[in-house]
Each structure stands twice: as structure tokens, then as C-alpha cells.
């Protein structure tokens, strides 16, 4: 299905990532955003609030993030595409309802413009430390999809993709951008509506009395209806059967029941190959592979250039889809290369996934950063150099001591040594 021309403000712009995401949401057919302002994501909500009424979409500033996420789940079941926009502390507040969203299989998108540090942290500066929270934040077993754009253009493009994935797999989809990308201004091209592919809702069209809200199709995703269309829906966060009725009573009576949680996990895991999007560069003869995402990808490009200048064969794998994690790809690479280098703006999150998937076949080097800024490309280059030279197999994640770390923890300015 093509985008509705009414929703698409085609043209070439100079805008920041947040704003681009607001335009992307509308172009994707988003009809409802409930949000609560939080730096550095506010501009995305502002943009949507400004352009939505002209396209028949609604923005409402809710009383808090708990309300925002609950409202978008409700709106999702009323039949519209929905999103909420937040950052660090607001994202933490949304965790409980993300589990509800996964359980009632409401398609929805969360834009998280990540900021630095735990708690209030550094509201106006960047971070990439919510990556694991996206995956494991709510209690219980469920799977999510998380995308990591690296430019304003991508914030536009991948906001649309996030909506498409949400409709296709009926699961929480997170856009895990960071403050750098959100506040960076670049050229953004919004194509004409006929060039934008959007995924319509998978609506049920069989006989009314036979509808089962949680009976899966072949790809494990059930078809949806809209609240108020007379289907006598019973949708609950309790573990439920295909009709949606809670099965706790049957379980208490000792009856065997098929648990739906298995499918919530499988519908993403078994479709992972279709979902995952990566870019690879210079992989053919690579000895070291840099695995990066978001703004760290763009910083790593410079680090890799420097390392190549010294004759090291470096490949660059970019995770556009961070969750589900590309297990197979990393495992396959691990058998071919000496080491992985993972620069990320945290003290180790995705690096442990890389370590897990490499199964001890290759060394794994983390280039950490505490947030509020991006890496110095020299640090990445040096970590690559070290990784290429290291002959021993080191059976744990090696933490590369960056300039910043040395400066902070060794109490002296050794930046010019």
C-alpha cells in the first residue's frame, strides 16, 4: 500500500532528526500520538502536533508517560496507527505497559531519543545506554524490534519502517536513536507519497462469529479487528487463549493449556531473518570487524579509515536492526575474523551480545564511552590496531582504555602522550 498524499510533506529540507521523525510518523499513516515532553525528544512530538491536525491525525499531551503509552495502546486497538515519543526517564516509566502491548499484540512504535546517564543523567547530551532496556525492560518473556538510525534522513525512513514492522508483526517496535542523531541537522528528502510503501493493518475479514483475536496466521501473527466493530472482544494482559479469555482458571484446575508466550517470542525469533537489516562494508578480507550502531557507526567510519591507513584489514558491520540480534551473522563472522571491536556509548551492552554469538571464536573488544559525547575516532582506531595484533584468545570482553577513561580515572591529562 502507498502512503496517503495528504500525510506526506514531500520536498527537500534541512531539518534535525527529531523533526524528520515527526514527518516520518505522519507519512507512515500514524493517526495518534500521546506524548509527554522530554528532552531531547520533544521536537519530534512538537512537529507531529503541528502537522497532524491538517491530516486528520491527533496529538495529545498526556499527563505523564504512563498515560502516554497506555493511551497509544488503546488507540492502537481502536484501529489506528500509533506512536509515543520519549527519552531515558520517560522510557523507564513506560516499561510496564510495553509488556501489556506485547501481550495484547497491539502494534505500536516508541521513539526513544537516548540521552546520557542513569536517572536524570545528561538530558541534553547523547547516550546509547538504553539498548538492553529495550530488550528486557518489561517483566516476563516477550520480543521486540529495535531500530537504530544514524542520520535525520534515516530517522524519517526508519520511522516509516518501524510502523510497517509494528503492523506486520504486531509487537512493540522501538526507534532507538540517540541525541546526536535527533539534534543533528542535515538534508532530508521526503519523497512523493507514491514512493512510500506502507504496511496496512492486518485486518480480519472472515465471518464475525468465527473470529479469534489470538489465532495466529502462518507467520505466527494473528489478524486484528477494531474495537467497537461488534466482535465482543475480550483482550487482557493475563495469559490468555486464542479467544482472549484468561487461562489462569484452567491452569489452576490442572488443565494443560498452550501458553501464548511461546508465540510472542517465536513470531519474532522465527521471522528474524526477514526483519534484520544490516550493512556490511569491507568484509571480504577483514581481520577485524567493527560492529556499531547509531551515531557510533558514523564515528567508527573515521576510526576505520585511520586503521586502514596503517594497513589493517577492517570490516564494518552496522546494526540497523539491533533487536532481534543478528546471532547468525555474528557467529558466521566469528569463525572468519580475529576480533570484533564494538564502540558504543555505554559501558558494555551490545558488546555482550557480540561476545555471546562469537562463542569464543574471536576476541571481542569494547570501546566504551560514558555518554554526553561521542567517541574520539583515534580510540576506535587504536582499539582496532590492538585487536589486529593480539594473538592470544582472551576469553572475556576486553575493555579498551580510551583517552577519556584514562583522563578521568588515572587523574591526569595524558591526552597528548
Amino acid at each position, binding site marked *: 500500500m502507498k502512503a496517503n498524499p495528504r500525510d506526506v510533506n514531500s520536498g527537500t529540507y534541512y531539518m534535525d532528526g527529531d523533526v524528520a521523525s515527526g514527518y516520518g510518523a505522519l507519512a507512515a499513516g500514524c493517526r495518534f500520538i*500521546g506524548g509527554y515532553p522530554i528532552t531531547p525528544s520533544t521536537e519530534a512530538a512538537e512537529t507531529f502536533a503541528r502537522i497532524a491536525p491538517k491530516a486528520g491525525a491527533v496529538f495529545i499531551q498526556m499527563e505523564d508517560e504512563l498515560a502516554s503509552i497506555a493511551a497509544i495502546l*488503546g488507540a492502537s486497538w481502536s484501529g489506528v496507527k500509533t506512536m509515543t515519543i520519549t527519552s531515558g526517564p520517560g522510557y523507564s516509566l513506560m516499561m510496564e505497559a510495553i509488556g501489556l502491548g506485547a501481550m495484547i499484540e497491539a502494534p505500536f512504535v516508541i521513539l526513544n531519543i537516548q540521552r546520557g546517564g542513569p536517572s536524570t543523567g545528561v538530558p541534553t547530551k547523547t547516550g546509547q545506554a538504553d539498548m538492553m532496556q529495550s530488550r528486557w525492560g518489561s517483566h516476563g518473556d516477550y520480543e521486540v524490534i529495535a531500530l537504530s538510525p544514524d542520520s535525520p534522513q534515516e530517522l524519517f525512513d526508519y520511522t516509516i519502517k518501524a510502523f510497517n514492522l509494528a503492523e506486520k508483526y504486531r509487537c512493540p517496535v522501538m526507534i532507538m536513536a540517540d541525541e546526536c542523531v535527533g539534534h543533528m541537522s542535515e538534508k532530508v528528502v521526503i519523497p512523493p507519497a507514491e514512493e512510500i510503501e506502507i504496511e496496512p493493518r492486518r485486518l480480519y475479514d472472515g465471518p464475525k462469529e468465527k473470529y479469534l483475536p489470538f489465532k495466529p496466521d502462518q507467520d505466527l501473527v494473528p489478524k486484528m479487528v477494531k474495537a467497537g466493530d461488534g466482535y465482543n472482544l475480550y483482550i487482557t494482559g493475563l495469559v490468555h487463549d486464542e479467544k482472549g*479469555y484468561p487461562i489462569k482458571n484452567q491452569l489452576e484446575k490442572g488443565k494443560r493449556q498452550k501458553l501464548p508466550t511461546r508465540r510472542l517470542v517465536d513470531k519474532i525469533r522465527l521471522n528474524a531473518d526477514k526483519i534484520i537489516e544490516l550493512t556490511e562494508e569491507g568484509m571480504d578480507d577483514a581481520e577485524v570487524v567493527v560492529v556499531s550502531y547509531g551515531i557510533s557507526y558514523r564515528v567508527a567510519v573515521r576510526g576505520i579509515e585511520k586503521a586502514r591507513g596503517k594497513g589493517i584489514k577492517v570490516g564494518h558491520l552496522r546494526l540497523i536492526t539491533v533487536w532481534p540480534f543478528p546471532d547468525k551473522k555474528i557467529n558466521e563472522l566469528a569463525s572468519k575474523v580475529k576480533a570484533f571491536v564494538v564502540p558504543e556509548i555505554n559501558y558494555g551492552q551490545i558488546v555482550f551480545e557480540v561476545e555471546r554469538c562469537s562463542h569464543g571464536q574471536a576476541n571481542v573488544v569494547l570501546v566504551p564511552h560514558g555518554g554526553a559525547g561521542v567517541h574520539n575516532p583515534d580510540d576506535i582506531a587504536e582499539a582496532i590496531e590492538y585487536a589486529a595484533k593480539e594473538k592470544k584468545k582472551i576469553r572475556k570482553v576486553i575493555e579498551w582504555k580510551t583517552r577519556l577513561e584514562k583522563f578521568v580515572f588515572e587523574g591526569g591529562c595524558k591526552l597528548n602522550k
Partner: protein
Amino acid sequence: MNPIITAFANGIKKSGVELSNIVVVSDIPFEPEIIKDLGVDFFHVTRGRAIAFGTGLKLGNPDLKIVAFIGDLMTLGGNHLVHSGRRNMEMLVICVNNFIYKEIAGTTAPSVSSPSETGKKFHGTGGFSAFSTFEKPFNAPHLANSCGAVFTARWTAMHTNELTNSIANALDKRGFSVIEVLSPGPNFYKDINQINSELLDFYYKNSITKNNEDTRNVEITPEEKIITGDFTDKEKSPFIDTYNAQLGKILGDKFIPHGGQSGRD
């Protein structure tokens, strides 16, 4: 619980609202099996978020009539109650008050009266409150009224006809309506508090109906009879109308009014 659902079913019949347009949203404590047979859509969401979830449903499809059955109204749901009143979000909230958290071993709710010698029967003494409660309770109709609700009422579950009428009236109103229903919790609460007669009867007999009473005077105290009745009934522009009027004024022709040709694509 069942008398309330019966009153709700009769209330729907009595009102002008179409059954298939009604969506019931509830939070954790409220999960009655008989809602399945009512012919309405039902959503059972996280604790205290029924009003917020309902807000989304309403804004996603303004044709829906949202009814939120809530237990955690004044705790987890407090902020949503306050702000929905302020916005005048079109929705009926039925707060089922049994003074305790039924599912959690009789832990006290913020609607329990503070103690006094005569008031022993109202004290939560289970769960977290082994030593009775000493905090001031909320007065639900007054709270809702002060936040801007267009309709408030309180009945006990035994006031079947009155409750039915209240629900029918509230369903026909365009705005934020709150009905508090006093309903007995589980039996152990009765035992703990040594109320010998059936609780259902107890609430009913200890109540006095004063329609249109100022909500400031309807606090539940152990010393006085419970005041029931329809308290607030006023007209105010609901959220979506205000939204459409405001944006229409500013954007003129460029604005696509919500609930009109807006895109339920």
C-alpha cells in the same frame, strides 16, 4: 460484583447508546467473567491505567463510548482521573469501592476512613494495615467534581434502580462522569472487621440518599451514614469538541476535524 454488572447492563439498555459502540476498560482488580456475555468489547489493562487506555480508544475512534471500571482509581489511576476531569474526556468511570484491594489480601485502599472508636468496622486490618489505618481517605465524588467531572454519583451495589438510572444518565452525557459504587469485598474483610450482617446489606442500610448534595459534604466517615445520590450534573464541552473548535479557529480550512472525516483508514 454481579449486581453492578446487572445495573450496568440495564443502564445501557435504558440509555440511547448502542451496545456495540461500548468499550469497557478495566484494570487489574476488575475482571468479571460475566462481562463476556454482555456483548461489549472488553479490555483488561495494567493497574490504574484504564482511564488512560480509554482516552486512547476514544481519540482513536471518537464514535466509541468508553466505560472504565476501576479499582485503583485514586491510587495508581489518580493522575489520570485528575487530568481526564480537567480535559473533560468523554468517558464514564465506574469506581468500584470496597475499601480494600480484594486481590491482595485485603490491603487497604485510600478510600478507607480514618479510625475512631465507633469506626472500627471500616478499618482495613489485613495486608499492610495490621494496625489499622490512620490516613485521611479520599472523597471520590468530591475529587472528581473538583477536577471538572460533569456527572458524579455514589450508590451502593444494593441501590439497583438508582444505580441503573445513574449509569443510563451518565452514558448519555458528553463528558467525564464518575460513579462510585460501594460494594462488598471478600468475606474475610467482613470477618476481620466483625460486621455480622451481610456487608451488602450493611452498606445499604447505613446509607442515606441525598441527590444534588454538595460533594464537599459526602465524605464517608465511620460516625455518619453514607451519603448516596446523584451529586453533580452539569454541561461542559467535551475534549474532542473543544479540540475541534480551537484548532478549527486557528487553522481554518486546513484543519480536518477529529471524528469527522478523520482517517480511520
